């Protein structure tokens, strides 16, 4: 507790100095976060796990969709950060009102019912709830299936899920009704010819 003279009020006021965590210390799953808080990352990861759950194949959590969303919000999606914050707050409040616990602590079915309310616009506090759900869903899927260079689709989990062999230079044949037996590849820039480093 510290005392400061505040010129605005012409009085001495009490101020609590809250020590802000420096950006470099925001870590989630062993990686530095660029835009999201740890709490937000945990929340979004849980949501991603319901939008594309792991079954006998890995899902959005394993694909690291949260890291695509984090990095995007440090860049082209930075203008969406406040919308995310607002939406997540409302979602959390709704989860607590239904189940007395925060979203990440709920069971899968409970989480699905909370997200279902968001999807159908039933969260009264969030007027654009349906649109926010669509935004979340779109971003999770972008993260799962987009280029790994954007932060997600770890180990090409997303591509392997749909049988897409990644950024091949081309195909020697058109594989009509045949499984493509080429190992999936990723690239930074132009695709590489076979044998090219």
């Amino acid at each position, binding site marked *: 507790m510290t005392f400061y003279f505040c010129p605005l009020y012409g009085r001495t006021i009490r101020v609590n100095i809250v020590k802000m965590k420096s950006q470099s210390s925001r870590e989630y799953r062993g990686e530095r976060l660029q835009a999201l808080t740890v709490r937000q990352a945990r929340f979004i990861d849980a949501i991603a796990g319901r939008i594309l759950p792991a079954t006998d194949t890995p899902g959005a959590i394993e694909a690291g969709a949260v890291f695509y969303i984090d990095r995007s919000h440090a860049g082209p999606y930075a203008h969406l950060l406040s919308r995310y914050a607002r939406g997540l707050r409302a979602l959390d409040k709704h989860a607590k009102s239904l189940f007395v616990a925060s979203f990440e602590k709920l069971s899968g079915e409970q989480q699905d019912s909370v997200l279902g309310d968001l999807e159908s616009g039933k969260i009264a506090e969030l007027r654009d709830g349906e649109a926010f759900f669509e935004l979340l869903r779109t971003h999770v899927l972008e993260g799962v299936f987009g*280029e790994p260079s954007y932060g997600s689709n770890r180990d090409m989990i997303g591509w392997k899920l*749909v049988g897409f062999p990644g950024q091949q230079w081309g195909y020697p044949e058109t594989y009509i009704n045949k499984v493509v037996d080429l190992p999936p590849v990723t690239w930074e820039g132009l695709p590489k010819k076979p044998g090219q480093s």
Partner: protein
Amino acid sequence: MGGILAKQLTSAGLKVVALERGPALKTAEYAQRDSISYIARPDQLEGVRHEPRIFRTRATQSGNLRYGTSPFNVLGGSMLLWTGQASRFMPGDFKLYSNEVASGLADRAGVDLRGYDVVDWPIGYDDMEPYYERFEWEFGVAGVAGMNPFAGPRRKPYPLPPLKMTARMQLFGEAAKRLGYHPFIGPAAVTSEPYRPPAPYDTRIPERPACVYCGHCNHYGCHVNAKASTLHTAIPVALQTGNLDLRTNCKVAAISTDDKGVATGVQYFDSEGRLQKQRARVVILSAFVFEHVRLLLLSKGDGKRFKKGLANSSGLVGKCFFGHGDMRVYRLFDNFIINGFIGSGRQPCESMTSTATISITPLWVLFAAVP
């Protein structure tokens, strides 16, 4: 189309100044097959971010800004990212009013054409035929002449054999035949073999390699230069004549006219953002339809002589747009592996009646496979 015009005019000995509002990109800068950059959020691309669009069907609607890679404001334009669909009009397409309105066909079909201005073209298929042929042989179009029963007559076959059959083409073709239609392989401006135009076509155009069926034609650039673009054909040839002064990152702001109302040149912002003037005996607009409309409507001429803009005494500039209309059907096959990501962008297997086309063109959208 500016690239083609530049080639033709410089080759005829004319001095041409070409003003391109965007940069000249290297292949590596436009041929990344990156669905995040080109599909999910193209607003980040240099050739896109300056030109959002709003689409409204009524002026009273509010519009949301949309960003897309067509038009693509770089040297070579959206032809760098097109599907390669190189169909000719059929003869009847030039006579839409006569064939479908005046004939009573639209009435019998119960089509409400109020508010639409359907007219016949002032030219016909026979006028266009030699130029279709020229495009097909200079840019390398792969197809099978005579397979489409409704196509117009042609003096010459296609210069290239058709591209390889893919799963979708096969399924579609077999189903269309069973239903009694006439599926045919649609023409694609994508090389099926290494190709260089032979005489009497423009032999200065360098050879291009064959398509490798990576499946990323539409919305993406071709990393092997199999898909036809002016950037690797017409534009280098035009530059080699020595008659082309190509200025990139120069945005035309208005067309200048003299006191007789004749176009005398343009005003443009150069790459430093300074307003410049360029005189010309002939001004050609080849910047895609939206930019043409803007320039014509904004160019009011000396002393606001043209209050409605240039070439607009009819009041029709910016009206009667005709776009792509399509309906897409997605189906999951339990017992057949489609591998829809393989093929040229124009996976052409089409079936037509004389008035409508049903075709398989695989816009390979990344998320289409997600159930």
